[in-house]
């Protein structure tokens, strides 16, 4: 088994070798390590992408907008990097649509890191696959095959509001249960066991 450290260092160097700058290569190395740690086939997808990288004409998303469509296909690295670098401005969109992106799994690693930076969960639907990015702590997905994804015709991203997954009723019920770990108070117990006096007014 290759260690995550080996995966990061080697994919960084491979990215430099394919023509990216050292700074971008560092990002790719980190991202592929991240995907592999989350159990997603980052290295396999990157390897396939680099096989066609120089013979294909991939495009960059210059300014991320609500809807983005290239003439050919977007490069997942440069587009992902711009998505990440523009993280503060893009979260103003509730939803973002990206059409035609090559090897989209590589792009997802940038989305995961963006979720951490903006402090919001991101829901992403890619064709029939769904991903929920949880602040770069985990990725929840129905994509478990580990296949290489050569392209996606349509990606939809939604920035989720920071709200709880439960109702106030759920909370009250759980909270009331938690109260059963507390000891009932009396004036006597307050006097004997609390640090302050019986009155809060002074």
């Amino acid at each position, binding site marked *: 088994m290759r260690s995550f*450290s080996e995966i990061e260092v080697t994919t960084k160097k491979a990215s430099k070798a394919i023509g990216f700058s*050292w*700074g*971008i290569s560092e990002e790719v190395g980190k991202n592929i390590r991240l995907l592999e740690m989350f159990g997603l086939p980052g290295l396999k997808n990157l390897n396939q992408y680099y096989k066609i990288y120089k013979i294909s004409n991939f495009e960059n998303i210059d300014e991320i907008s609500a809807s983005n469509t290239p003439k050919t296909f977007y490069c997942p690295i440069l587009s992902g*990097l711009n998505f990440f670098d523009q993280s503060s401005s893009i979260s103003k969109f509730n939803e973002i649509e990206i059409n035609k992106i090559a090897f989209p799994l590589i792009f997802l690693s940038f989305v995961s890191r963006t979720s951490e930076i903006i402090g919001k969960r991101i829901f992403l639907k890619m064709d029939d696959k769904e991903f929920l990015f949880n602040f770069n702590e985990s990725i929840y997905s129905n994509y478990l095959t580990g296949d290489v994804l050569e392209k996606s015709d349509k990606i939809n991203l939604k920035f989720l509001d920071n709200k709880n997954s439960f109702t106030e009723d759920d909370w009250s019920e759980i909270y009331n249960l938690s109260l059963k770990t507390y000891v009932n108070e009396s004036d006597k117990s307050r006097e004997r066991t609390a640090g302050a006096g019986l009155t809060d007014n002074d």
Partner: protein
Amino acid sequence: MEIRLRDPKFLMKLSKLGSFHQSKLSFLRSFLSEFKDWKYSRDLFQLNDKGHGRAVYSFTKDKRTYSLICFANEIKDDERSDRVIATKWDAAFTLFDGIPSKEDIDRLNDNVPKQEVGRLSYKELTLSRANKSVRVFDHVVDSLSNGEQPNKEILSKVGYLYRTTAVYGSGKFGLADRFRIKNREEIRGPFRLEMMLVYLVRQFTFDQVNHIAKNKNPKLAVELDPAISRNLGIGNSTGLGMAPFIVNHPTLLNNWIHARETALKQIREIEQVSKNEIDIFYNCLIKSLKNITSWHTDSEFQKEKIKGLIEDLKKFIKFMKEDFKFQNSYQFNQIYNWSEENLNDECIEYIVSMMMEPYDNIVNPLITQMSSDEEAHFNIPVDRTIEDLRNILENKYSEILKIDFLKDENNQNFWFISKNKEEPRIGDRYIDEGSDLEQPLAIARDINKLYEAVFTKKNSSKIGKFLKDNNHLRHVVRRAFIAEKFPYSEIQDNTIGSKLVPIDMLRLKLSFFGAIKFDPRSDKWLRICMFQGAPLPSELGNFDDKWIYKS
């Protein structure tokens, strides 16, 4: 009185960093302190009469065990090389996480002796190999087998029986990634497990030499005197591999230096130093003179450094005897200020190391702050402005911005990785091939390029926008924002200039390891000694932590 931390622009020059010495903060000393109450044992020792075979040593506490697995092999004299291109070694080692099964040892027997071309697993933590100092090793075997102790003079010239030529960790060749173990209490200081490997290897060398002598002459042989063993360390032969490390790990470098500087600041701020504290400092200094004068090196560069150090120390001792005013307050600040005014860097940094000796209470809490979670500082704050970045460059890199990279001599060298061994090298840009594959270690040059690039940009413009058109400078944008928070993260010097002495970078790292007896073999590699004078594993329960000054 508040003393300021020393200015990184002055401290982080390579010549200054190359003058650092071991101290109480050094990793091999803090390793011994951490593991002093662990149970040591030799669990397996299956060597033939020539000393070839396998052995296992361990440290155990509660439910945790670390085991060193040793494989000693027969190699021909002409196969023995300290160079990284070597493919065979006298012995190879790995530190195993737990107690290895026979299957583990058999698996490792097929891989550990192959080193870089073998494969390790998440169960193994560090990997190393070592070669005998044949002259010393044979002398010790001959002496012991004849019932005599070896000649101390011969031993002192070398100081060890074996010399390691690399110690790997952190995921290399399939070893466990650091994240698997980083939260363990006992390895809060950097390089703890690398230090453990080297320390246990040292014991293996003593056991092996005793074993061979005994088999050579069972009736007459004696064991190596523990006092002589104690005075032997483990050698290390170190090339350029260490140099990129300190550039590639800026927050870690910061934390090492910051700990040292914080200790110095706090010691200089002590208003009333006790007589006992001054005595500890002074005694360590006097005892260490024996150590310095026993350094043997053929390097003119190092000979000059040692000569200067000894001359300066004599001046300093004269000052302590004649002019130092103990009755005045802030005694260590007096000592430091006098040193700054009267001594050279090599001796100033030597004295700084000694000043820590009386102060466990200051030094020990700092040891746990010397690791770094580098991942936490990787993201570039793309929301910040060009004005922020320009301010950082002007404030944190002002020395570097003075370097004129239009001059050839300031671009003389380039760092690259050799294909055959994947090891760092440094070449002359105007002579050697490969500069098109230069590694990103020319930080000073690239920071200058970044400064030029931001110069014409609008103050309010965001970093994210700047990167869109300047991704070729992304690596130094990241570093600049790290330097903003970590003042000692950058070498304030040119790492590709014609005046570069690469071993300055190696010495910096080795001093934090706790190495002594720096013996440069060229400007690109050197030999050192580790654990010379250290207690033996059986003595760890009760030892003097100033052992390093007694070797």
